[in-house]
């Protein structure tokens, strides 16, 4: 069983039972119940050549019931297992937050805060090789917005397939990406574009839309809303795989935006267990680069202490271990500056669509 494949209800339940069985078997042998997990830190991710993304390495940690806090986590996993089984059997789903509140009734298995329940849901994904969609668990986070000449079919609440063109059938805010973008919920039907442009900030997304950049440059524009949600990364991955269109990331020039790109292209540390399913290895960082700050003489801010710390830590992050990224990070450390996407407005509202993007795209061979 591998991640990303559609699983039957029974397969998901069996996988979850495997977690309970590991604990039960240990107790039968007179040993403390336990759950084995990969170590989920920067130190334990490595590039998977076959999948072309970053995955967890071989370091495992055992969570066993020799300490009170770990024992509580084990008990909670069992409560979640039972809860998910009930949802699968009754055809319901719940948000992670709802599950957190439902845990109020779990007595000693109740969560201390929502972070705990989110992390444990991820742990279970990793151990069972299922994804949370299999568990009928939803995030609260917003999916992305898309504008451009692409057509999807989405299954609505009545169970009917609904056809939506993201240029003609939507308003200025675009098409809202649902939390589940798997093929049972969303189909990629048609497109007439040359590339996909993922934009970090809402202000820049709206500027591109207002300037008609999607039609002019024949692209789909996606608003990432900061660190992109899983469904956003997943739909980009599908557009890349199924339509073979390049994904270009247009973000601020600061260490945090670099991390947004890394999670799109190589996978996030927290979700490294499903990197091959979320990460678009072909994604390209378009800008704004440290070079751009100098080349375009952009208004910039000094790097703060925490910015500098983030840059330093990126130098030891295997996802940034390429020559190009090292150069960019070093240059940024050297000039000590960062710049926002919207600093391009220094040269007028149309500068970004008339000058900056054509020049950057042209360099990649995407002329329009």
């Amino acid at each position: 069983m591998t991640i990303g494949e559609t699983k039957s209800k029974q397969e998901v339940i069996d996988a979850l039972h495997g977690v309970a069985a590991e604990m039960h078997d240990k107790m039968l042998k007179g040993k403390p119940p336990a759950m084995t997990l990969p170590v989920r830190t920067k130190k334990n991710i490595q590039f998977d050549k076959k999948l072309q993304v970053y995955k967890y390495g071989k370091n495992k940690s055992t969570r066993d019931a020799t300490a009170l806090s770990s024992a509580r986590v084990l008990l909670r996993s069992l409560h979640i297992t039972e809860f998910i089984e009930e949802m699968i059997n009754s055809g319901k789903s719940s948000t992670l937050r709802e599950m957190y509140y439902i845990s109020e009734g779990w007595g000693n298995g109740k969560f201390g805060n929502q972070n705990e329940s989110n992390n444990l849901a991820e742990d279970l994904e990793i151990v069972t090789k299922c994804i949370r969609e299999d568990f009928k668990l939803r995030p609260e986070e917003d999916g992305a917005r898309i504008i451009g000449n692409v057509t999807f079919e989405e299954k609505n609440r009545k169970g009917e397939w609904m056809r939506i063109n993201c240029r003609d059938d939507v308003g200025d805010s675009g098409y809202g990406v649902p939390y589940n973008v798997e093929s049972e919920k969303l189909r990629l039907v048609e497109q007439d574009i040359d590339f996909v442009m993922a934009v970090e900030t809402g202000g820049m997304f709206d500027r591109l839309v207002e300037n008609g950049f999607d039609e002019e440059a024949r692209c789909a524009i996606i608003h990432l809303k900061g660190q992109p949600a899983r469904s956003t990364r997943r739909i980009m991955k599908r557009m890349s795989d199924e339509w073979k269109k390049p994904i270009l990331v247009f973000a601020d020039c600061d260490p945090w935006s670099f991390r947004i790109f890394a999670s799109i292209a190589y996978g996030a540390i927290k979700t490294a267990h499903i990197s091959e399913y979320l990460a678009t290895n072909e994604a390209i960082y378009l800008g704004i680069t440290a070079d751009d700050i100098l080349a375009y003489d952009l208004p910039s801010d000094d790097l703060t202490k925490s910015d500098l710390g983030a840059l330093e830590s990126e130098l030891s992050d295997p996802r940034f271990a390429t020559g190009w990224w090292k150069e960019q990070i070093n240059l940024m450390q050297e000039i000590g500056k960062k710049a926002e996407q919207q600093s391009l407005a220094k040269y007028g509202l149309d500068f970004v669509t008339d000058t900056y993007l054509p020049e950057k795209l042209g360099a990649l061979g995407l002329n329009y």
Partner: protein
Amino acid sequence: MNKAEEISSKQKQIAVSEFFEKNKHFLGFDSLQRSIITAVKESVDNSLDACEEARILPNIHVELNKQKGDKIEFITQDNGPGIPRNAIEDVFGKFLLGSRFHAIRQTRGQQGIGITGVVMYSQLTTGSKTHIISKIKSESSAVFVELGLDTRKNKAIKTGEKRELWIDERTGEEINQGLRIRTIMKGKYQKGKQSVHQYLRMTSIVNPHASISLIVRDKEGDIIDQGNWPRTTERLPRVVSEIKPHPHGIHLGTLQRMLRESNERRMTSFLRHNFSGVSMRAAREILVNAKLDEGREPKRIKADDAQEMLNAFQKVKLLSPPMDCLSPIDDLLIKKGLSKAIDSRFASTVTRNPSVSQGNPFQIEVGLVFGGDLGSEGPIEVLRFANRVPLMYQQGGCLLTKALESVDWKRYGLDHPGGRGVPKGPAALLIHLASTNVQFTSEAKEAVADNEEVHEEIRKALLEVGRGLKNHLKKSSQRKKAKEKFELVNIILPEIAKKSSEILSRPEPDLAPVITQIMNAVFCEEILGWEKDRKVATCSIKIYNYTARARAYTILVKWPENKNTALVDNNRGGRKEAKGIWAWRLDTLNPGTCTTVDFGVSGLAKGEWVDTDIFFRGNGEIIGATRIDETLLDEIRKSEALVLAEEEILKESENLEPLIERAEENVHHQMTSSILESKEGQLSLSDWEVE
């Protein structure tokens, strides 16, 4: 002569009222804020001293009402013995040197300028007269009088004197005895570390027998601050006796005068009758050392010989001065006093045995409270006291603080950055120096002067409470760990077993081997309680064997053994290992089983026994108990035997001493025909100069 008259008759006068006017900064009336604290202090100290001498449990009420400008109406009232009509002028109108100025024993104030300062300060700042109501129990009515001062003549000016029934404004009942002072003075009421509130709070801590209350009102009559510290004990401080000076604290001048003024015929008698701590044996040894003949007449001793005597005093081993001149607060009462003023989790107190510095008996008491409501940010609260009087100023320059700072508190679980200054953490520390002669750094009497012996005693006391704290912290962390483990195996693990079995539709696994594996230790847990009806302190010790092997232990418990206490309800028997240590040999404890040792202690007060130590003998560790240190146990047994032996010797020597004395006196009678008895022991201490 009734009590009140007796006290006031001891007062002596000094014409220093003019001096006050010029030097009020000396006397604590230098700033508006300070003046009000000093006024309260003088009045409350007087009330406490008067009540103590009259053996009355004090109720003291302080009221401050702000008025226009910087004026404050000042009212204090107590239930003390009152002041006789004819003594009121003297007590309030002159600078008095009380009896205590001439006696060697522990008292609160050591200079008698006290309450006159309040009368004078009020008059100088607002022109207000001081209104006194005094009621003596034996008289049918109270004296009402207004006092002013003629500062140049050192005389009170009395007006509006009348006799009436004194009716309590609040209850409408007649007041049977007490004293009320009301006046108006300039002053500024402020809250904080140096405030009337803090002064009274601190006073209540070291005077747990007193009930003290405070009300402060603003100009509009609204209450802006108040405090109420009820008494926590009915036990009055013990009556302190006056003592003779000890040779170690005598200066040449004093010795010479004592010699000159002595009517003794023989040097041995002179030494034995004028000093404390000098036995017949010691007197002879001193004289041999000083190369003085026993039979010499004290009056004829010259300066050189007196100096020789002084040197000899230091060489000869002398008994310590008697300690009944000191009035320590006592461990339990400090604990009660502290817990009344401060809400905390842990309290440890130490009353050191009395000690002597330069012939002056002194005694150190220390109390430490930790946790609870105490703030963990910033330095700990330091509560300094000298003879039950709070010291509120010059903390940094005070010996008590210096001794506190000399301890490495990090070792005892308090944050102590750089090992310097006052440690930080959620704690308050009380240090009380009781002494017949507290040496201050200045006239203002705010900081205790350096003294090596006192410093060392404080340090020892602090180390002792420090060890208590460390022990407590270690224990509570052990207890927390044990509690977590119990929760793990007793609650969470069974739930994991139940839930996983439910999910998998399998039978539940046997958890006993799992529990053994997780715990892999023997745990011990003690619970101290109190049986109200029978007045028995209870102790229940549970021992759990969560290992895979059978265990056999002897459990030893520290209990407060003394002549008043006894072990009760001790069904397991056991035996005494040493004083205060009882031991039980337990039957073999099989894996997964638990056993309990229960017993009680009678003869204790509630709250007196709140913490104990559990020790064990046997193989393998016990979490929650300490392996008994056999050498330490031996030492305890030895020192115990030593104490017993000493007591016996003391008893013998007590029997011996009168014999020697009688023998000696017979010799005297034979040798001289002069009459000795009329003069012996008659030298009054009040004739001495005050050092």
